[in-house]
């Protein structure tokens, strides 16, 4: 084998601490090295030409480049090698810049290290095998998980590009949290007015199949070829027959047994219900847990009044399997629970604010419902306990957020803005009321955001107090809010009628479970991880799965929408070709040696390992061996280390290559 070694000076970046000519000269003496040279800029056009010419002149089989990190220019050099006629995977890079010249001062020791690094690369390249890219077909259908604003936006964008979309929403209606909001900052336009047309569009779009009251239970396969199992929960209503007239709802005798979760438990709903009047689809759901028929076997009032015969008490959960090419995850967020949850001590809750004991200490979404014209108070400012108009209201920011002692270190990003908005809305509705805001800092980065906060303070006379609240307790129907004004350096006590806590945005409860189902990583809070924090913000690390909205980190509406469109765009790029090209760094099983213990299957994070029968000449299966689906394998190599008989090799990083590197130390 003839190997060429090319040492780059990177201007002076490498050559200032590494004696590049010496490295090149020493490498020339190694067995197998046919040609060795150093040059000022290997990645430049003349540099690449030098490589190409050397490959052709010396008939090189493989090359080693001593340059910057492979993350930087591996592709460049592979292409150069390819254009000169050698397999792009017969190229190894020794990282002489980031791992050597930039981090060491002493010329002698860094030169010696550089020699060793190049030597390791030479030994590895000797064992390299030519690889070719893998092609996999693409199913042109997209799954969007979550029907909030991010999911709606992503679904519409993909569908408008002409691809089929399956939109799965776990609630009976799409719309998400945005449909609960009263008005949006910083424009104070009505949230539902801008959202509902988009919801309708989703419903009517010929390319979108909408599955509400459904959940993703299993994801198999790989980019371009996922197989997704979706469970459609029983509504007990025949969706084809129901006209959405609402007769069943108005006649249902169970009126006050269940809280309306859309109204954030500020109102009741009947046993058969539509979450809210603009729900899409406008089809009710029967709640088995409170319905008299399901509890006692009697009643059946809805059955009697439905003239379309759409009520079906026997309906069962159904499961369907869809072929999917790409997945957009847009599961959104929930709010930090201030109540005491003995079952889940992940977050501690706020005992000092009464653990939800006081009915007038509410969270931001509850306030949204009170302020909303379609809410339980029809938009009138009334406090939940006695329906009185609160004359003094306190908003507390950063409840949960930025509070390590309660388990969350991050900033929830939107609370400063929505608190300002809510205080403003309150002042607009209660002209003689006083609004106080306890804050740590005001974070109003965004177009017209800072101006909006200033407006709340200056025009609407909201009183901002910088400090934390240490305790809230009830006295004489008032809520005594004890806190500190850190600017004045004084303790403050406010006897408020109502307190609104701007609780932190946290991931949905089932986010980690869903992440495991799909096979994407998540951080310690449960937010899904993007592939690269800067350059790949909408891709998950699993190929073919994209992220949109607040499931990745706290976001406001415009950011969620932007991310959704970005994810849609990435998906469309993926679906635009009929086949996919993948890097050939995948694991391969030696079937002769495989003992069939299937530990590889157990450790494979992607489910790439399948069972393959091996037959003798009579066609009788005599052993089962592991088989790695090259389309699914992501090339982590965990199986190779787990395999006890070493029957699996990871192409491009096989054991022989690594042993050679170790030997060259």
């Amino acid at each position, binding site marked *: 084998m003839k190997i060429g070694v090319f040492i780059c000076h990177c201007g002076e970046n490498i050559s200032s601490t590494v004696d590049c000519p010496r490295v090149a000269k020493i490498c020339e003496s190694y067995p197998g090295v046919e040609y060795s040279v150093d040059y000022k800029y290997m990645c430049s056009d003349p540099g690449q030409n030098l490589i190409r010419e050397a490959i052709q002149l010396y008939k090189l089989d493989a090359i080693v480049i001593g340059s910057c990190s492979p993350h930087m220019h591996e592709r460049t050099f592979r292409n150069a090698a390819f254009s000169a006629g050698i397999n792009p995977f017969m190229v190894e890079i020794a990282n002489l810049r980031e791992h050597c010249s930039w981090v060491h001062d002493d010329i002698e020791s860094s030169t010696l290290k550089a020699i060793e690094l190049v030597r390791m690369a030479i030994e590895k390249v000797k064992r390299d095998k030519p690889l070719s890219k893998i092609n996999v077909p693409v199913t042109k259908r997209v799954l969007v998980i979550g029907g909030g604003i991010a999911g709606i936006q992503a679904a519409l964008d993909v569908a408008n590009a002409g691809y089929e979309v399956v939109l799965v929403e776990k609630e009976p209606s799409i719309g998400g949290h945005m449909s609960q909001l009263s008005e949006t900052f910083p424009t104070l336009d009505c949230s539902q007015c801008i959202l509902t047309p988009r919801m309708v569009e989703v419903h009517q779009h010929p390319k979108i199949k909408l599955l509400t009251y459904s959940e993703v239970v299993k994801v198999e396969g790989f980019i371009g070829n996922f197989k997704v199992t979706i469970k459609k929960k029983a509504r007990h209503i025949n969706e084809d027959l129901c006209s959405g007239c609402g007769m069943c709802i108005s006649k249902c005798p169970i009126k006050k047994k269940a809280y309306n979760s859309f109204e954030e438990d500020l109102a009741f709903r009947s046993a058969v219900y539509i979450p809210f009047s603009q729900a899409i689809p406008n089809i009710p759901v029967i709640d088995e847990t409170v319905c008299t028929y399901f509890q006692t076997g009697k009643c059946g009032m809805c059955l009697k009044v439905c003239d379309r015969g759409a009520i079906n008490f026997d309906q069962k959960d159904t499961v369907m399997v869809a072929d999917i090419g790409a997945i957009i995850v847009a599961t959104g967020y929930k709010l930090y629970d201030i109540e005491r949850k003995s079952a889940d001590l992940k977050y501690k809750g706020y005992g000092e604010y009464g653990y939800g004991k006081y009915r007038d200490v509410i969270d931001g979404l509850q306030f949204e419902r009170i302020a909303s014209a379609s809410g339980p108070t029809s938009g009138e400012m009334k406090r939940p306990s006695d329906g009185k108009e609160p004359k003094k209201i306190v908003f507390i920011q950063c409840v949960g957020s930025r509070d390590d002692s309660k388990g969350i270190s991050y900033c929830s990003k939107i609370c400063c803005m929505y608190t300002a908005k809510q205080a403003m809305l309150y002042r607009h509705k209660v002209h003689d009321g006083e609004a106080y805001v306890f804050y740590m800092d005001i974070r109003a980065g965004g177009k017209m955001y800072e101006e909006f906060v200033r407006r709340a303070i200056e025009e609407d006379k909201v009183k901002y107090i910088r400090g934390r609240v240490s305790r809230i307790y009830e006295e004489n129907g008032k809520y005594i809010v004890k806190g500190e004004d850190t600017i004045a350096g004084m303790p403050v006590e406010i006897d408020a009628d109502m307190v609104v806590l701007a609780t932190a945005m946290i991931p949905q409860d089932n986010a980690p479970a869903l992440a495991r189902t799909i096979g994407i990583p998540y951080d310690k809070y449960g937010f899904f991880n993007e592939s690269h924090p800067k350059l790949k913000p909408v891709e998950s690390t699993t190929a073919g799965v994209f992220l949109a909205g607040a499931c990745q980190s706290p976001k406001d509406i415009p950011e969620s929408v932007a991310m959704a469109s970005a994810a849609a765009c990435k998906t469309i790029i993926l679906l635009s070709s009929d086949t996919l090209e993948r890097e050939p760094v995948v694991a391969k099983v030696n079937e002769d040696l495989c003992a069939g213990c299937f530990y590889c299957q157990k450790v494979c994070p992607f489910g790439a390992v399948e069972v393959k029968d091996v037959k003798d000449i009579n066609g009788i299966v005599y052993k089962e061996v592991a088989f790695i689906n090259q389309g699914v394998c992501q090339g982590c190599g965990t199986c190779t280390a787990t395999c006890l008989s070493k029957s699996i090799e990871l192409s491009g990083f096989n054991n022989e290559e690594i042993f050679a590197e170790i030997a*060259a130390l």
Partner: protein
Amino acid sequence: MDEKIILKDDLLRICGDVIDKGHILLCPVMNEYSIVKDFSRIKLDASALPAGTSFKCYVFPKTEPVLYYKRSKSDVQLIDVNIDRKNIVILGAKPCDANSLNIMKHLFNWDYSDEFFNLREKNFIIIGLMCSHYDEYCFCTSVDSSPVSEKGSDIFLIPVDENKFAMRIITEKGSEFISPYAEYLKTGDENISKQITENVKLPKVAFDSNEVYEWLGENFESPKWEGIGNLCLSCAKCAFVCPVCHCFDIVDEDYSYTEGRRMKNWDGCQFGNFTMHASGHNPRDIQSKRYRQRVNHKFRYYVDKFGEILCTGCGRCSRGCPVSIDIKEIVSNCKD
């Protein structure tokens, strides 16, 4: 035959001198042949069972370098190994072990003279000791040997009483070794030792090696092999503890990316990979074929080639077999 009498104490004195001269003294201690520095540990017990392993490893080490190499850009440089020439004195070798070098010698000097073996073997002095005890696995009498056989020993000892040995000097090497110590030797009476040896209880002759030879030739495809093959677990413990098994493997081991050494290691015919070809074909792919090979090699092929049975009847292979396969039983029952 030159027969002498020597006191045990004098024998130990000779041992002391051997050690002082810088030779290596090997003696069965605690169930194995070990290098003895403190000769109070020497027991010289004729009624002990054969040691767990033979002294094969001192003449044919479990691993040894045969050459070193260094690769450079243009060529490969080879460096020879300087072979050790130390004298080794083995005191108290069982007759079944003593004979092993004689048997193995043929193989190492057949088509090629193995200097690694020969140089070591040349420097061996084997002082054999009569054996007065056998167990259910011993069958030396079935393979042309016996507990009182002098075969392979340079000097042979017969315990007369607790403190005295009759000493027969068998070979020239033996007499050369003992000559400096003539003062310790008294003239002995051949009849006394003869009487002792004749009274030694011999293990029953379990089989006739000639019949076994014949049977093996005719029963290459016997269904018996499969039964044994199913039980055998393919470890090579039998081969590794055998005093005469001599198969070895040659491997190259790298020190670094340019330097390395070539090693000669013990190998065992019971390993599945023993006959694995580079093509992937394995002529002895299943255990029954491998076990058949083992028995054939010992009782037929080696006889064909060198006229000797490749077995000393020490019974180590059967005594240690994890699944209690008894070669004596298999061979003696071959005809049923």
